[in-house]
Every structure is written in C-alpha cells, then in structure tokens.
C-alpha cells in the first residue's frame, strides 16, 4: 500500500464528543479505484469516522488528506466540493422535498448541469426511484430512502463515495442489488468507494481491502479475502451473523 499516493489518507485521527473519545488514533487509507470496507460492531466509531472526514465533528488530532489536499480543517461544504459524496448514517433524506428535489440537491455542485444525464444513470440503478419521482422523501419506505440517499450521493459525480451502512434495513435481494451496483460503478467508472458495514460478509466480499474497528481503534486490516478467512474476524463478525 503506497500511503503517499492514497486518494484518502487518514492519519492518527482522534475525535471527541465533548470529553468522550470516539476515535483514538485511526489510520485508514483508501487508494484510487479501490472499494474499502470498514467493519465493526455497533458503537465502534465507524459512522463517526465517516462524519469526521467531512469535519463534523472535527478531528481533534491527526490529519485527513484527500487527493493531496489537507482537508482536516476545511469547512464541511468545501470538503464536499472536492467531490467527496456521502450517503450518511440514517440516510438523511430531505423529508419535505420530492425525490426529484432530493436528487437535484445532490447535483447542486454543478448547478444541475449534468442533472438529466446523471439522473438517468441513477434510475437505471434504482428504477424504483423513477416511479416515486414526485413523492416526498419523508413518505418513502426505508429501502427507497436508502436508494435515494445513494442516488443523491452519486448525483454529485464523486471521486470518492462514502457509504454508511448501505444495507441497513433492506431486504436481502435489495442489498444484493445495491452491492452489485457498487461493484458495477467501481468496475466501469473506477469509482472509489469507502463503505461502513455491519453486514461484514457482504462488505468484505465486495471490498478490495478492509479494516476492522473496535472501540474507536483500527485493530486489523487486510484484503477482503484475508479478513474473510481470518478466524478472529469470523468469530466476531461472521459466524452466525451471516445473512
């Protein structure tokens, strides 16, 4: 792994909520063209890391570099403008906007310049959204909201896509569909993806590399295959938890 050339390079990051330390010295690197999975139990700090990349909350120590730019202290919206998009924890759909407006919000970086073109791609990925286009975000089902959240992130034409639990609350068939879509985007467009998952099996199968996080510390890393075969990982995250 050539850390110097990593697209996203997180070094020694510590994040606090008040006085409570949520991340302690996290090192993660995501190289261009990779799918990297971060797995771990509830409350391990996975989502905190995702949000720390966007500076909300801010890392108290350590540095975060994206494509050679130090983004540790950049305002959140400027980090987004470097083309990092996120489908965050809880999906955060704008509840009183229509599906279309939510997608338009995703495309606001380019002021809707590529909206027509990109929205078709999103609809190919998630045809369901097309049927729901005029419906308000808050009235969608959980799965539909998840699709919309990912679709909205894709509308930003990201160089790096952050996905926080894309499989959460979805039927296995839809999870497969979403994972297939991620793989497809990665393969055909070289989209770099960093995803957080509790569905460790699916995530590690999908990922080029993976990290395991426990209590705000990265305890293990390796290729997706290695981690899948690792007995500790199997015992803690896979056996019995496999869907």
């Amino acid at each position: 792994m050539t850390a110097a050339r990593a697209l996203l390079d997180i070094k020694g990051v510590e994040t606090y909520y008040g006085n409570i330390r949520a991340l302690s010295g996290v090192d993660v690197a995501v190289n261009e063209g990779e799918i990297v999975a971060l797995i771990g139990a509830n409350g391990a700090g996975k989502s905190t890391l995702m949000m720390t990349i966007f500076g909300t909350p801010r890392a108290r120590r350590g540095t975060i570099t994206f494509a050679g730019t130090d983004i540790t202290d950049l305002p959140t919206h400027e980090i987004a403008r470097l083309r990092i998009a996120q489908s965050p924890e809880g999906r955060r759909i704008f509840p009183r906007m229509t599906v279309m407006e939510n997608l338009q919000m995703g495309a606001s970086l380019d002021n809707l310049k590529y909206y027509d073109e990109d929205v078709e791609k999103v609809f190919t990925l998630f045809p369901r959204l097309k049927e729901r286009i005029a419906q308000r975000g808050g009235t969608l089902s959980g799965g539909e909201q998840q699709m919309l959240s990912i679709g909205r992130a894709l509308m930003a034409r990201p160089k790096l896509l952050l996905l926080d639990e894309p499989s959460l609350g979805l039927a296995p068939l839809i999870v497969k569909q979403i994972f297939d879509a991620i793989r497809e985007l990665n393969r055909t467009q070289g989209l770099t993806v960093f995803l957080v998952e509790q569905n460790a099996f699916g995530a590690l199968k999908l990922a080029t590399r993976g990290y395991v996080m426990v209590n705000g510390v990265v305890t293990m890393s390796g290729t997706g295959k290695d981690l899948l075969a690792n007995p500790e990982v199997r015992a803690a995250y896979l056996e019995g938890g496999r869907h």
Partner: protein
Amino acid sequence: MQYFVQQMVNGLTLGSIYGLIAIGYTMVYGIIGMINFAHGDIFMLGAFIALIVFLILSSIFVSVHVVLFLLVMMVVAMVMTSLYNWTIEKVAYRPLRGSFRLAPLITAIGMSIALSNFVQVTQGPRNKPIPPMVSTVYNVNGISISLKQIIIVVVTVALLALFWYLVNKTSLGRAQRACEQDRKMAALLGIDVDRTISITFVMGAALAAVAGTLFLMYYGVVAFSDGFVPGVKAFTAAVLGGIGSLPGAMLGGLMIGFIESMWSAYFSIDYKDVAAFSILAIVLIFLPSGILGRPEVEKV
C-alpha cells in the same frame, strides 16, 4: 354590507403589510429556529430609509412621477435594510450559533432595542410626517378604495409571486429549504450553510423594507418606536399561520388585518389589539402549531 366590504378592503391593506413582515419572521425561524425579535425594527428602519430617500428626492426634483418616486424609495430601502440585517446576523447572531437556544433570542431583543434607540438618537424622538404622496380615491358602489390601498395590494401580490418562485423554483430556494430541513446534510452536499442563512436574512429584510415603505406611504408618518407594535403583530401573524410556513405567514397577516379592521368597525377600536391577540390564543389552543404549521414530530 357596504360598510362590511369597506372594512374588508381596509383589512386587506393592513394584512398585506403584516404579511410581508411576517414572512421575515417565519423564514428566519424556519432556517435557524430562532425568533428574530429585531425584525420589527428592521421594518421601522426600512420606513425611515424610505423617508430619507423621499426627502432627498423631493428636495432635488420638483415633479417626478409618484410611481418612480416610490420605486426608488423601495429599492434603496431594500438594499440598505438588507445590509443592516446581513450585518446584524453576522455580528450578533452567527457567533452564538450552537450556543444554548435562549442566547440568540436575548441577543435579538437587545438588537431590537439597539436599533430603535439608534434611530431615536440619530433621527429624533418625534413623529416624522411626509406630505401625502398619493391621494387619489376611487369610489366603487359607495365603497372608497384609495390608490394607496391598490398600490399596497398590488406590490404585495407581485412580491409574493416573485418570492414563491425564488423559494420553490430556483437552486437558491432549494438550498434554503434543504438547510431548513437538515443543515448538516445540506453541508455534506456542498451547500454553504452560513451563506444561505445570510441570504435568508437579506430576503426577510428586503420584504420588511418594502412593508416599511408602504407603511410610510399609507400613514404618511413614522416614528422610531413604530417597529414594536407592527413587529409584534406580524410575529403574531406568523405564529397564527404556523411559524415556519410561508403561506401561513401571509394568511396569518391577512387574518390579523381583518380581525383588527372588523373589530374596530363593529366594536371598540380601543380593543382591536386585544381582539387580535385573543384570537391568536384561541387558535393556538386548538391548533398548537398554527393554521398551516406542521406538527413538530415530523423531525426525522
């Protein structure tokens, strides 16, 4: 019947002015959840700036078309008032964002006092009259409708249409609504939240300035203390219509206008404010989030 319709016309005029001010309250509340108590004084400031522009214009030009006069007054008032509100937000409210909820509220009350005292000191405490700008009155079936009233209603309708377009059809409006619903997510999508909030204050101030100009034209007089009562009434209108809702603000404004003019016509004029506020209290008992407001539970 004639009398009733006459009062309707008066109520509509008054309600339009309240509605324009109420939109500023409701927008700011929608986006940062704060009642900007200085907004009434922003309205008063708008009226004063319009007054100053009027005095300057009328000392230079002897006879200019009155519409042109009004237009210049309005535009200058809008620009200057927006500048004031933009600065106030930046200096007084922004540093307190993320602080406890009461802090910006108290600051807003302080800002309100500061503004009215500033005008009192610089412009003097007395009422400032202007000669009537528009005095034409039409008589339709025994109902007198003044040109002033027509101007007020037409300007309000035109502004509301423009405003509706801005909020619902432009990327700026979309960003504003996004910030209103989920500020953090809006930032994750590259929206500059601080800038969007600033623009919201500017838009609210511009509408208040128009209301101030219309107020000056209608009553022909303004005083430093005139921000308070119309401000409180417009705030009431915003709450009555459902705070956070733009159509609600306008509806609330019209309702307060109607209640006031009807009450003054059929009952006692001294009790018109009592009537307006009592109806607010009654409505809130049955509809705690106002007429068009949405219940708080929708927060996801």
